[in-house]
């Protein structure tokens, strides 16, 4: 196994659960100049860690999640999850999408069971998995509803349950709460922490909101502007379980400010 110099990681290289080394990726739209999205991107994530990525718009945060998900192939670089190289989509990883990505012709239950259905699980086994998940996200009684009958918050709960249904090791979240109103967003953040504490997944969470990142995460990665790579990693040494009141403590605000200052240089420069 080749170990390339550790640039930005905070954790032991060999132990890292997710290892990204020198990832490069450029988009090549036809008849236009290529756009470099990721350049020498390195990242280490520990198993069970909640890690957020913040960065300027278009810095490649979402691109990295899509690479990790296996939907995009990097031009070069090594990407390992649990010692295995990423070669495409796999059931060890699942994504929660910003725009929910629910299939409008499927009920709540059928949406939650989508991944299980694609794994060719028989209906009774699917039900056995989906029922407790639907309970957990608080949508019992809505199993036969269609997405258009749900509020934004409810839709994203379904998105979360669908991602958890295949029992992935890694949960990728691409600005999952950006389409929700502020109050719903606060509630969903608390819910997510509760679910994460129960399920102990490794979470990679992309967001534009520094406060959200600090509130949820063990560590926050600030990315440079495009072509993006990790600029600085902040350890969030706030105790858990975290509550809403914690957001108004001086300690919380100090962290927010430090991250903002690091990020500001990338936005304004």
């Amino acid at each position, binding site marked *: 196994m080749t170990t390339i110099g550790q640039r930005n990681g905070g954790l032991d290289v060999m132990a890292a659960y997710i290892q990204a080394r020198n990832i490069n990726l450029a988009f090549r739209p036809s008849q236009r100049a290529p756009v470099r999205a990721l350049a020498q991107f390195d990242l280490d994530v520990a198993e069970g860690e909640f890690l957020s990525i913040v960065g300027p718009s278009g810095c490649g945060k979402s691109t990295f999640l899509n690479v990790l*998900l*296996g*939907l995009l192939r990097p031009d070069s670089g090594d990407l390992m999850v649990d010692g295995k190289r990423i070669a495409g*989509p*796999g*059931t060890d*990883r*699942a*994504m929660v*999408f910003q*725009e929910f*990505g629910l*299939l*409008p*012709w*499927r009920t709540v239950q059928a949406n939650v069971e*989508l*991944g299980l259905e*694609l*794994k060719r699980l028989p209906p009774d086994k699917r039900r056995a998995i989906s029922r407790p998940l639907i309970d957990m996200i608080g949508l019992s009684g809505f199993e036969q509803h*269609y*997405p*258009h*009958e749900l509020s934004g918050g409810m839709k994203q709960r379904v998105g979360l349950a*669908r991602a958890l249904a*295949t029992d992935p090791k890694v949960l990728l979240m691409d600005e999952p709460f950006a389409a929700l109103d502020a109050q719903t967003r606060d509630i969903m953040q608390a819910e997510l922490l509760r679910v994460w504490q129960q399920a102990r997944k490794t979470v990679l969470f992309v967001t534009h909101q520094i406060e959200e990142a600090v509130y949820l995460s063990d560590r926050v990665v600030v990315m440079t502007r495009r072509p993006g790579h990790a600029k600085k990693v902040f350890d969030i040494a706030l105790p858990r379980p975290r509550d809403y009141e914690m957001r108004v403590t001086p300690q919380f605000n100090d962290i927010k400010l430090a991250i903002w200052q690091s990020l500001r240089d990338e936005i304004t420069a």
Partner: protein
Amino acid sequence: MALFFALWEAVFLVVPFNPLFISKPSQIALGLLDLVSSGDLAHDLTVSAVPFVYGFSAAVLVGVALGVVMGWRPRVGYALDPLMTVFYASPLVALAPLVVFFFGVGVGGKAMIIFLLAVFPFMFNAAAGVRAVDRLLIDVVRSLGGSERDLYLKVMLPSVLPYIVAGARIAIGRALIGVLVAEFFAASEGIGYAIARFGDLFALDRMFACIIVIMVIAVVLTQGMRWAERAAFPWRRAAG
């Protein structure tokens, strides 16, 4: 509706129209009864239904297949779209004599005219449906380990189906025009031929009876389609 027929009937009490040029509801009803009891109507409808079924089925198959390819492959879409638009927008009825010349009097020629009129709504709607498929949903299914076949069955098909059904509603009306036009031009039986013949014979009561039957069929088919649509796509109730 009842008022409309009542007024129509009432006008005849006042104005002495020449029954050669216009008829009234009571006579039309008698004519209809006559056509039904003699079996002529059933016979004509059966004769017309055969090319309708052939032409319409061919329109579904060819239209959807071509439309999907046009929507999925932008180059094919660009290449075919202008030509197809010309055919769709122009009065294809003008080609009817030519079609009859090529395909003969009878089921072949009729089915061809019906096909030509009905195929384009299917084609354009299927293409629009494929273009409107949400890329995000494709990513979702792929990321959860879905195969190419899963993409077609679980994303493409359900997205495109409502567009095809909407196309079918338009196509039904056009296909019925096809039936009549084909039978006006060249036929010896069928509901369109019956209308033309009764017109020529100044048997206006029976001509109107046939016209009303065609109208009822058109409404029933179109409305039936709407009901089927609502039953089959419950997720579109709020959006639609």
